[in-house]
C-alpha cells in the first residue's frame, strides 16, 4: 500500500486552476483495424470535475470511456486516471473507477443481493453486508433484495446497477447514457444519489440529454467523427456556439 501511495504522489499533477488533475488524456488515437475511431484526443479533468460528453452515435464516446476504464487499449497517445497509467496499473485503477452504463452489468439469474455480494467479492469490499444494506436502502430496493434481477423492471435494474457501481466507493465514475430507460422516479433517485456523492467523485458522463448534461457538468465536450469538435469549461461556456456545433454535428443540420 505505501508503494501505491508513493506512486500516486509521484504522479500527482495540478491543473492550471490549481486543482489536482484526475484524468489526463494526451494525443489519444484508437484504430480498430484500418478504421480510425478516435483521433488525437487531448483533455484534462480536475479532481471533483464533471465532464459531459456529447456527440452523435459512432462519434467515439463509448470507445473513449472504455479506454479510460481500462477495457480497451489506446493505439496512440497517453492516458492517466488518478495519476496512474491504466495499462501499467490497471488493477489499481479498476479499484478506483465505477461504470454505470445503459447495460446494467448484472446477472439476471442472481438476486439483487447475490449480484452485489459477487461484485463485493471481486472488489474486496470491507463490511460488505453493511455496505449492501446501505446501498439497497439508498436505491430503494431493500424490499427486493432476494428477488432475481430477471424479475425487475428496467428502472429497478438500473437502480441496482447504480448500487453496483458505487459498491466499492470509486473515486471516478463513468456514466454511459445513464438516464436511458429510467422512469422519472428512477431519474430522481439517480440524480439525488449523484448530488450526494458529487463532492467526492470525478465524473465523465456520455449523454444525449443537453439540458441535464450541461446542468451537471463542469466541462462540456462534443465529439464528432472521433475528434473534439467543442470543449469548454462550463464557466466560459458559449452556449450559442455549443448549440450551433451540436445542431450541425449531432442533428446534421447546416
Amino acid at each position, binding site marked *: 500500500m505505501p508503494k501505491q501511495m508513493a506512486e500516486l504522489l509521484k504522479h500527482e499533477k495540478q491543473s492550471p486552476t490549481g486543482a489536482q488533475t484526475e484524468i489526463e488524456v494526451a494525443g489519444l488515437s484508437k484504430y480498430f483495424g484500418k478504421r480510425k475511431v478516435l483521433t488525437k484526443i487531448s483533455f484534462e479533468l480536475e479532481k471533483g470535475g464533471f465532464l459531459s460528453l456529447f456527440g452523435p452515435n459512432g462519434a467515439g464516446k463509448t470507445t473513449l470511456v472504455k479506454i479510460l*476504464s481500462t*477495457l480497451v*487499449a489506446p493505439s496512440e497517445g497517453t492516458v492517466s486516471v488518478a495519476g496512474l497509467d491504466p495499462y501499467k496499473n490497471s488493477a489499481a485503477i*479498476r479499484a478506483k473507477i465505477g461504470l454505470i452504463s445503459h447495460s446494467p*452489468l448484472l446477472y439476471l*439469474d442472481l438476486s439483487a443481493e447475490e449480484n452485489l455480494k459477487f*461484485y463485493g467479492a*471481486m472488489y*474486496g469490499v470491507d463490511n460488505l453486508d453493511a455496505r449492501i444494506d446501505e446501498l439497497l436502502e439508498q436505491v430503494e430496493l431493500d424490499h427486493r433484495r432476494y428477488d432475481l434481477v430477471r424479475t425487475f423492471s428496467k428502472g429497478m435494474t438500473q437502480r441496482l446497477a447504480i448500487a453496483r457501481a458505487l459498491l466499492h466507493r470509486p473515486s471516478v465514475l463513468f456514466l454511459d447514457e445513464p438516464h436511458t430507460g429510467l422512469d422519472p422516479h428512477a431519474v430522481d433517485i439517480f440524480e439525488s444519489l449523484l448530488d450526494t456523492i458529487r463532492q467526492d467523485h470525478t465524473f465523465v458522463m456520455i449523454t444525449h440529454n443537453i439540458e441535464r448534461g450541461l446542468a451537471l457538468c463542469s466541462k462540456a465536450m462534443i465529439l464528432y467523427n472521433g475528434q473534439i469538435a467543442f470543449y469548454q469549461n462550463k464557466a466560459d461556456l458559449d452556449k450559442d456556439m455549443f448549440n450551433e456545433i451540436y445542431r450541425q454535428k449531432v442533428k446534421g443540420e447546416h
Partner: protein
Amino acid sequence: MAAGKQVFAIVKKDVLAELRTKEMVIAMLLFVILAMVVFSQAFGVILNDLDRVGGGLLWVAFLFMSMLGLNRSFVHEKDEGCLEGLLMSPIDRPLIFFGKMLGNLLFLSIVELFAVPIFFVLFRLELGASMAGIFLATIFLSNVGIASVGTLLSTISINTKTRDLMLPILFLPVIIPLLIAAVSATGGIMSGEELTEVYRSMRFIAVYDIIFLLVAYALYDYVISE
C-alpha cells in the same frame, strides 16, 4: 486469500445461475444419454469387442457433450454486459479463467457421474470395484484438460460472430492428443489391459493438463482483454 475468495465467488455465481436456469447441465445430460443410446443401437449388436471400442464411443459422446456446455459457459457473462463488469473489477485475469474453468469442470463431472453408469448398462459392460476408481480418476483427469482448453477457447470464441461454429473448430484439433490418451486409458481399463499401459496414458493426460493450465494462466490476460 483474496484470490481464493474471488475464484470461489465466480464458481458460486455460475453454480447459482445454473441451479436457477438448469439449461447447461440438463442439456448436456440429455445430449450425452441420447448419443450413448444411438451408439448402443448402432454398434452394440455388431461389435464383439465392445470393451475395446467402448472407450472411443464414451469419449466421442463426452467430447461433443462438453462442447455443448462450454459454448454456453460464457453466455451469462455476455448477457447484459456482465463480462465488461467483471473485467472492470480489479481481479487478476487468470483468476477469471480459474473460476470459469472450475465451474466447467464441476458441471462436466456432475453430468458424467450420471452418464457413466448409464453407459455401462447400455453396453452391458462390467468393471470391478478396484478398477472403478482408476476409471473415474482417468475421467476426472481428462475433464481437467477439457475444461482448461475449453474455457480458454470459449473465451476466444465468445467475441466472434460465429461463436457456435468457432469453438469446435478451435477445440477439436487441440484436444486430440488428450482424446487419444483418454480413449487408450479407459479402453485399457475396460478390456483388462496391463495397468502400466493405463498409467502411462494417465501420466500423459496429467502432463497435458499441466501444460494447458500454464498456457491459459500465461495467455488469459491477453485473450480476454480485447
